[in-house]
């Protein structure tokens, strides 16, 4: 059946979501291991359970067995028969890692991870602590028991108790800053409820007095919570509102007796918050806003309610997560087309200018409108590709755990700002460098527990991974509270490897930056963990390939912070249009520090060819951009413009160009598909007049200039 393959693919997609849901839940549980929220436990349990169910359907037996063992522990926990405390948490987290691996292994058809057996044993030990029944997994279709009649219930279970609550806030309640909606939500969280706003007293708009309170609510709360719990919520406002609470007798006729005489069933998986048999308006505790049934009379406008009411006639819809899955190709096609639109708009603008049509006329205004529209469409489309950093950050939790295990250290990863959104491609390509940096922080940053204790730090090391948006870029910090960079040692290594001249004058930040030098790390120096033949130089290259920058800051004894600054998108770029030997080219604005027209006194000559410019107390090497692209040299520097660009943390060169034209947003068009990697050029763009302009990669320019032995000192501006 071909459909089955699609379903299989859908199952693995679902697994991704479920694993993410589990990751969230487990993170919450880690923070409060002794008293995990029941709803969190339920959600983690359901995720494992769904994975097991699907895996069974596709005959993935290894996954089923493991999920079953995992689920058993979670089930014991949620039914209150097992409390694992903080000691069991690492097992659950490792089990989560293994489950992720098993899903991936099943999807890719590779062998199951070897760590599975050990974790299975750990899970069994945990489960035994809760007295798990040795119940075999029963995975054969069970024949149906048809001895039951089809008619309505034989012994319907008693409805959970509930309350009818009338709530009429006074003006003083609002003046005291209370929010009725918040109170109603708190009540609803006790179970499920029908909230009915009473607008009978609300005057028609003409006679409306904003200072008086007329809106009241009735709440049919179906809950197992005690009267005390209900009172506790309303106590805070009881003197500010008329509150009446009456027990809700029943939900369905004919059940009164049972409801009052039978005690609540005490089955193992019965939980206090389990919603009862509520009709179609039932709502759950996770809904952000109560669903309302409003009786609005006499006017169409919504009552002066903090929550918008709905007319009775329209069916009440439950809020459903409104997302769709879209093939990425379609989004990219749209982004390309928007790029074309921006180019067309620029060309049109150029044509209008050429036709000498005056500003302020209909045509110019129309064009302005199109421009604004194109810009906002572009922004919207970009936001489709934007995704939260969360999945990447979540993966780092695991990297931290594994790195901590491998080094025998105790390390916790704290994540901040993971909701910040970045282009999908940036996110994907961020995984490797981040992984490396986290491993690096655990391995080299965080000290051993004994050492930490001896200097008065908590035994558990802390790495903070935080993200924030700042001036059109996303800034990611990786901060550890470790020993900081041992600069004497770094210097010694760098000197041994010939990266710096012995005894060279180096500022502390220069020494820190040596870590990013190619060839700094070597096999004997790095440990088993981060020694995978990858140094921080590779991290820096990867970040730079994304148009980003990475810097380092370290305080001895207090820790080290790596800061990554990334563009939000790889599709457009703020650029400066420059003239290089008669060609129009684009320089990324993000790398430009300043532009200057040098006075002759500022230019100094070193030897035959090398020229430097003095700027702000530093000598900056000059590169003739035209010459480096094989055009005629720019000529006398007095007629050229120098653009000082930062090509590396705190390192600058001055690019000599013929002229600066303009500054604008350009749409990036990759050259690599057609031309391969062109040195010194990162991509191309199409200008308003239809010409193609190449986008310069300043770092590659510097590298090729250095390769031509243009004598670039290592530390130019010390």
């Amino acid at each position, binding site marked *: *059946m071909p*459909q*089955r393959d*699609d*379903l299989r693919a*859908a*199952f693995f997609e*679902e697994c991704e979501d479920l694993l993410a849901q589990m990751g969230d839940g487990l993170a919450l549980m880690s923070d409060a291991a002794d008293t995990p929220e029941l709803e969190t436990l*339920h*959600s983690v*349990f*359901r995720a494992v*359970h*769904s994975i*097991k*169910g*699907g895996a*069974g*359907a596709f*005959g993935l037996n290894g996954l089923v067995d493991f999920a079953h063992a995992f689920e058993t522990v979670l089930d014991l926990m949620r039914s209150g028969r097992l409390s694992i405390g903080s000691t069991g948490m690492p097992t659950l987290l490792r089990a989560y890692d293994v489950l992720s691996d098993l899903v991936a292994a099943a999807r890719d058809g590779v062998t199951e991870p070897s760590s599975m057996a050990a974790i299975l044993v750990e899970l069994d030990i945990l489960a035994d602590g809760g007295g798990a029944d040795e*119940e075999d*997994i*029963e*995975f*054969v*279709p*069970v024949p*149906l*028991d*048809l001895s*039951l009649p*089809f*008619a*309505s*219930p*034989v*012994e*319907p*279970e008693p*409805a959970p108790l509930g309350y009818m609550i009338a709530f009429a806030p006074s003006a003083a309640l609002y003046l005291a800053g209370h929010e009725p909606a918040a109170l109603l939500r708190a009540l609803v969280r006790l179970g*499920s409820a029908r909230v009915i706003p009473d607008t009978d007293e609300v005057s028609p708009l003409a006679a409306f007095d904003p200072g008086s309170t007329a809106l009241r609510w009735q709440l049919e709360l179906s809950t197992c919570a005690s009267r005390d719990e209900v009172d506790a919520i309303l106590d805070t406002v009881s003197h500010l509102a008329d509150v009446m609470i009456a027990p809700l007798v029943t*939900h*369905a006729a004919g*059940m009164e007796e049972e409801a009052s005489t039978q005690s609540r*069933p005490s*089955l*193992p998986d019965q939980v206090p918050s*389990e*919603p*009862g*048999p*509520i*009709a*179609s308006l*039932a*709502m*759950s505790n*996770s809904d952000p806003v109560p669903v309302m049934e409003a009786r609005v009379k006499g006017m169409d406008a919504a009552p002066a309610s903090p929550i918008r009411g709905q007319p009775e006639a329209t069916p009440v819809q*439950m809020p*459903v997560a409104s997302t769709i899955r879209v093939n990425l190709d379609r989004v990219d096609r749209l982004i390309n087309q928007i790029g074309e639109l921006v180019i067309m708009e620029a060309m049109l603008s150029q044509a209008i200018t050429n036709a000498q049509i005056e500003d302020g006329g209909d045509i110019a205004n129309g064009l302005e409108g199109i421009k604004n529209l194109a810009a906002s469409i572009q922004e919207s489309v970009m936001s489709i590709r934007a995704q939260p950093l969360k999945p990447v950050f979540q993966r780092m939790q695991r990297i931290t755990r594994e790195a901590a295990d491998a080094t025998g250290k105790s390390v916790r990863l704290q994540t901040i700002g993971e909701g910040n959104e970045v282009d999908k491609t940036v996110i994907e390509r961020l995984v490797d460098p981040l992984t490396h940096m986290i491993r690096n922080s655990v391995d080299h940053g965080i000290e051993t527990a004994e050492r930490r204790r001896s200097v008065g730090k908590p035994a558990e090391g802390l790495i903070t991974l935080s993200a924030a948006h700042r001036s059109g870029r996303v800034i990611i910090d990786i901060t550890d509270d470790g020993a900081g960079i041992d600069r004497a040692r770094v210097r010694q290594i760098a000197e041994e490897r010939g990266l710096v001249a012995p005894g060279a004058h180096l500022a502390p930040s220069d020494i820190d930056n040596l870590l990013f030098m190619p060839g700094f790390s070597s096999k004997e120096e790095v440990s088993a963990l981060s020694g995978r033949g990858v140094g921080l130089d590779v991290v820096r290259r990867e970040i730079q390939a994304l148009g980003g920058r990475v810097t380092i800051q370290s305080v001895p004894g207090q820790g080290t912070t790596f800061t990554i600054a990334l563009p939000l998108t790889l599709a457009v770029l703020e650029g400066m249009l420059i003239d290089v030997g008669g060609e129009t080219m684009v320089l990324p604005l993000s790398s430009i520090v300043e532009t200057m027209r040098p006075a002759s006194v500022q230019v100094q000559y070193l030897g035959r060819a090398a020229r430097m410019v003095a700027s702000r107390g530093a000598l900056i090497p000059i590169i003739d951009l035209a010459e480096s692209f094989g055009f005629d040299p720019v000529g006398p520097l007095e007629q050229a413009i120098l653009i000082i660009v930062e090509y590396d943390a705190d390192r600058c060169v001055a690019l000599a160009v013929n002229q600066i034209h303009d500054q604008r947003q350009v749409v990036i068009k990759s050259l690599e598909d057609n031309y391969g990697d062109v040195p010194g050029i990162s991509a191309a763009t199409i200008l308003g007049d239809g010409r193609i302009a190449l986008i310069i990669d300043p770092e590659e320019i510097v590298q090729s200039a250095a390769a031509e032995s243009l004598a670039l000192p290592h530390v130019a501006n010390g």
Partner: protein
Amino acid sequence: MKFRILVIDDSPTMRGLVTAALEPAGFEIHQAQDGVNGLDRLAAADPHLVITDINMPRLDGFGVIQGIRTGATNASVPILVLTTEAGGDLKDRARRSGATGWIVKPFDEARLISTINLVLGV
């Protein structure tokens, strides 16, 4: 006439599997992604049979069974529980709530269909 079946399961994979098994057999399948949603769709779908999962967010399978049995419409529709759970006490509880039968996942397609036909009296 096509028999209508309302499938309530929070796992899209499972709903897909049941649909893939039953649609070719000539049933009209309606889907709901959790208990609350299932009860919401009950009247509109007006099914001849309901198949529900047990572990679901918002409202679980027991809630669904109770909701249907005590609801205003379709109160006597046959309800099959389709779940990975196989515990005797759970089955017992489902039976007392008013479930018609219990099938353990993963299901055998032919068996599922024959069971359904049996329940529907086809």
